[in-house]
């Protein structure tokens, strides 16, 4: 079966990224997803600008929300309500506040990088795993990206990828659907390389 332009673009993005991060494959999805997100949000002029992707959040803002805001966040989200039922019932704010600081950027603010970084955990509704591994995983990603040997090449690769994706008029498709396709193509690519 012939490949769609979306798949072709994704494959070339992955192929370039694999040259920069041959081992750290876990970065492909967050980087490509975040690049696409910010590219779609921009107007045409973004191509003229220096490309830099948005990854990190200001943790301060998240940490000083009132207790009731945090409780509402857990109660209003059906999966979180199920997962953190005991803490919600006991109003264990120390524990909930700690989990909130890690989950709010992903499930509340929907940060494109973080939501892709924890895509698998979210798919399996394993929110406790996100809380447990958040600091280590995010810290590792930050370190791996900053240590990439050729930063300018990385930026160029992401810029080209985002440009290609934007030219496919992906604004017309929901971000969730595009995210799903990206995840699937990346998985397929990695499997075929491993196989």
């Amino acid at each position, binding site marked *: 079966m012939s490949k769609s332009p979306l798949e072709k673009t994704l494959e070339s993005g992955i192929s370039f990224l694999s040259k920069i991060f041959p081992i750290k494959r876990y970065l492909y999805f967050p980087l490509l997803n975040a690049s696409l997100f910010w590219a779609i949000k921009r*107007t045409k002029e*973004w191509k003229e600008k220096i*490309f*830099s*992707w*948005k990854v990190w959040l200001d943790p301060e803002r998240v940490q*000083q929300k009132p207790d*009731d*805001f945090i409780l*509402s966040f857990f109660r209003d989200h059906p999966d979180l309500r199920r997962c953190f039922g005991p803490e919600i019932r006991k109003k264990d704010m120390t524990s909930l506040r700690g989990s909130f600081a890690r989950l709010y950027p992903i499930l509340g603010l929907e940060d494109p990088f973080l939501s892709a970084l924890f895509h698998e955990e979210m798919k399996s509704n394993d929110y406790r795993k996100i809380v447990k591994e958040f600091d280590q995983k995010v810290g590792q990603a930050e370190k791996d990206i900053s240590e990439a040997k050729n930063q300018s090449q990385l930026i160029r690769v992401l810029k080209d990828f985002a440009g290609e994706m934007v030219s496919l008029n992906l604004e017309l498709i929901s971000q969730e659907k595009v995210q799903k396709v990206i995840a699937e193509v990346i998985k397929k690519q990695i499997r075929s390389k491993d196989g």
Partner: protein
Amino acid sequence: MAKVCPREKAAGSEKASVAFFLLLMCVSCFSLFSSCVSHLKEAKVHYTQGQKYSRLYQTQDALGSFKRALEEAERVVSKRPSSQAYMLKGMTELKLKLWQDAEESFRLAHSHGFEKGEEWAQQVSLLGLALSLEELWVEDSSLRIYIFLIEKSKFSPVTVLAAQRYTDVMLKRALLLEGKEREKLLASVLKAVQKLSDGDLSCGFYHYLRSQILSHFSDYGESFESALMAKELGLPTEEILRDNDLQIVYCYQKLKEELSPEEWEDFRVKYMEWVKKWNWKGPEAPSWQKER
């Protein structure tokens, strides 16, 4: 045909050389001048573009533009330093949070005749100091500096950042307190931000901060109004915009519990008009939010 004596010929040739040299100098000076003018113009264009992107929540585009503006401004000051070029360089460095560089640029702008340069440099230096103290956990001193800047600074990039840091630190402290002590501390933060907001009603970010503080008081009506003002006036980043949207939804939910049926119906009708205007998917679903 008139004969030209060798001395006259030599003098003529010398004059021609001088004229050529002067012409060359003029051309070089002109091209240097026009190149500086063009770099300055470019720097201004990129800076203005950066501001435009900031207003549209396109943070990364804004950063890109500010970086380009800085590159151009650096070219100008290296070839033809002027108060205007240093001031533009300083403003761009502020946007990129390069505090020490901005301070130096404002000082140099002052030495080239920009009157306010020294004052701005001092304020940027104080802000940089407060941020460093905060990193070293010397919070009391950093808070004093933030309050000073909130009250005295007329330089808005500094005031906005000081207000943000002050609010963040104070709210963090308030969470550790209870009862009257907590209320007192929250009241002092609210007063400081309120003053800023009154002084610059068009700054969406001050309304955002006010909304955040008011929700600690469980004053959802006022918090909602401030969040609405913030959304309408514009916010600096995508994540703050989203956080503000979630604050609007949160206030809506709380008011639903709190208001009498008549009050609620009145509020709901008005709220739904905003929802329509913002193109939200529903009263509790901002347009950017994934379906649950």
